[in-house]
């Protein structure tokens, strides 16, 4: 059977007729690109000169003829294959980073992405058995993941949702909840336990706690203390830390000192209840566990920007990231179009 892949070329060429897909003004939904016809795709790209290319699913029929088929009543226009994709966006971490917000990233918060890559990459390989995984810098403030194994491409929407939910630890409606993560049960699922022990705990203790000064000021620690379910324990810590300001400050970094105090308090004999020890893990998960844009992963027909595109705002190229060396990746050092184009000699 002939299969066709959906591409969407976004162009700002004013002379081109802009049809628009209704949802994204200024889009030219030129769907084309037969799998066996690279030249056709190349031709269209040269002609339209798009500033962005989105990649969609593979259909059994020509996506350009969607309207013709839709009139037939029977909905034959359904995607057949699509990579399993994940989208992680730094702006979703705004409540846990103090260095930047929104679209900005810096070397203090970027490690959150590194952590996300490590947690996800391990689980996709070891738990789900996938091998063909591509991590790509999204050009500004996040990363994309393309899982290209045949098995992954053939997952139904329901199965995709299940995979996405496997990775989900955040509460529904967590916007109105001090406790963003609920870890239930007497022990953690092996996946969560591994993520915690191998990645999250070390990262939080050694890097993030001090990097973001999470316990340094009243404003910051007052966001963490409500996660502790025992009010008396939380109040005791609060009093002690407030007192710190006035009296002598203990030696060492206040973040580390206070984190140790918090852990000791919750693990001490007095508070040895299961829930209290668990809340240390909940704090670490709340601050460091990957935050996925679930909707992107759940549906086959979601579009995602092609690797190696140039981000329209930053001009940076969406380059791949090697998951084994993701710590070394520096988003601020990614080549931008201006630098790349000065190298241009091959063309013409």
């Amino acid at each position, binding site marked *: 059977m002939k299969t066709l892949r959906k591409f969407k070329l976004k162009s700002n060429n004013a002379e081109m007729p802009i049809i628009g897909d209704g949802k994204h003004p200024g889009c030219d939904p030129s769907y084309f690109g037969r799998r066996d016809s690279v030249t056709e795709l190349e031709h269209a790209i040269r002609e339209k000169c798009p500033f962005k290319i989105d990649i969609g699913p593979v259909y059994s029929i020509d996506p350009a003829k969607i309207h013709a088929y839709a009139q037939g009543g029977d909905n034959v226009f359904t995607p057949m294959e699509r990579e399993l994709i994940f989208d992680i966006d730094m702006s979703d971490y705004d409540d846990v980073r103090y260095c930047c917000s929104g679209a900005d990233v810096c070397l203090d918060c970027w490690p959150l992405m590194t952590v996300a890559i490590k947690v996800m990459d391990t689980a996709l390989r070891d738990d789900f058995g996938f091998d063909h995984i591509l991590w790509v810098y999204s050009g500004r403030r996040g990363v994309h993941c393309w899982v290209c194994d045949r098995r992954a491409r053939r997952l139904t929407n329901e199965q995709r*949702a299940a995979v996405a939910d496997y990775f989900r630890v955040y509460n529904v409606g967590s916007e109105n909840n001090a406790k963003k993560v609920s870890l239930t*049960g007497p*022990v953690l699922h092996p996946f969560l336990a591994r993520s915690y022990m191998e990645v999250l705990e070390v990262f939080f203790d050694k890097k993030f706690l001090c990097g973001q000064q999470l316990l340094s000021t009243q404003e910051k620690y007052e966001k963490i203390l409500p996660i502790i379910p025992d009010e008396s324990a939380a109040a005791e810590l609060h009093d002690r830390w407030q007192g710190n300001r006035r009296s002598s400050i203990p030696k060492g970094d206040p973040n580390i000192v206070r984190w140790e105090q918090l852990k000791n308090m919750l693990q001490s004999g007095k508070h040895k209840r299961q829930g209290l020890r668990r809340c240390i893990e909940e704090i670490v998960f709340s601050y460091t566990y990957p935050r996925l844009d679930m909707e992107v992963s759940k549906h086959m027909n979601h579009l995602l920007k092609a690797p190696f595109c140039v981000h329209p705002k930053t001009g940076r190229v969406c380059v791949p990231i090697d998951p084994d060396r993701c710590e070394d990746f520096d988003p601020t050092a990614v080549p931008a179009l201006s630098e790349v184009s000065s190298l241009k000699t091959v063309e013409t």
Partner: protein
Amino acid sequence: MEIVRSQRKTSDSSAAAQTLSLYRSAPDIEVRLDDFELFAIDRLRVLKGISDGLSRGKKPEEMEKLVSELWRTNMRLQEQSETMEKDVISHFVLRLVYCRTEDQRKWFLSMETALFRYRFRFESPDSQRMLMGEFNLPYKALTHAEFENVKDKLIQVARSIGQPVVNADAIFFKVPFEEVAELVSNRRVFLFKGYAYVAMNQVVSLVATQFRSLLSKALVLTNRKWTSTIREQEKDRLTPIVEALSTSYLGPDYSQAKEFGEVSLKDIDQLANSSFPLCMRHLFEKLREEHHLKHGGRMQLGLFLKGVGLKLEDALAFWRAEFSQKVGSERFDKEYAYSMRHNYGKEGKRTDYTPYSCQKIVSSTPGVGDHHGCPYRHFSEENLRAALGKMGVGGRTMDDVMDKVRNRHYQLACTLTFEAIHASSCDAGINHPNQYFSDSQKVLKTKNHSTS
């Protein structure tokens, strides 16, 4: 399917009669036309009950009780063989009824799968194994060596979900994770290299997935057969029954306003404000604003008003007053009055049409320019918030309502709205706009009574 560590052969347990059918093929038995319809209605009551239970957010244990209760009251006959026959016949009739649109298929598929799932749990372990065999599930139980390799992880998973600790004779199956999506999604299984390790007591998930996928395929085929041959062949016999069944609503019939008698035209604005559910209030306001409603809206609101107790003459006056401002009264009399009278059974085939139930409204598909449908389902979150705000819903209730909406419990969202506005509970839940209206009137009347 082979179960390695079980000594028992399936033949030993064949005496333990298994009552759960997989509905692999239509029964080759003669069915009386009356039974054809009656059995189907009984099964529909069961499915509808499950649907209500789920939309009310009942817990699994409560659902289990509900399903067994529904089954006993509606499906059980004297002899077990009769019950089994009824089960199979009613299932295949409803396949015909619910195969014809995507929405119908979806609803039927989830309700039948839910029913199957609960009935599977009631079966004895032996018959559960037989059922697994019948599905030809190609999975083998873990061998002892395999089990030992992953034992620690299996124990860890079991503890993480509060299950009893796994012992050495526990039976586990190793299946591709795709087959048990539901267990993967809430991390109830151990995953390794693409395989899920499913415990014997989780097998229902595996079986239900198979059941669902077989039924889903079968429904598509049935639909094809229906459109290509059955509809025409049976046009004098089964087709009318099937078509009537697909629209029938099983609760009380709201086509005659009984409890409050008539409603007069002059009260209608006040009633709309106090006792109309959001879907009707929205249509009512749009009609007042634009002096026009498209067909879907006219049907939904028109039949509702009839159920509320608006008489035909008043209804005609009401619609004419609005429409004439836009299309002129002459065109109204020519083009629209007929269908108003039609709704009241005064034209055409003279059926007294029933007001739409929530189920029908929720599953409608309003297009551009349409205002009918269920606001909880069809409005954007922003518009819904604004509309609810206008009704006086706010604060925590607003969040609760939106939470239900996000989980697709539209009728439950409507019930919460009702409770907030009336400051009174509504235990039965909202299932019909006319029920909303009459419950609302009841509450308001008792309140007036107590204050006066």
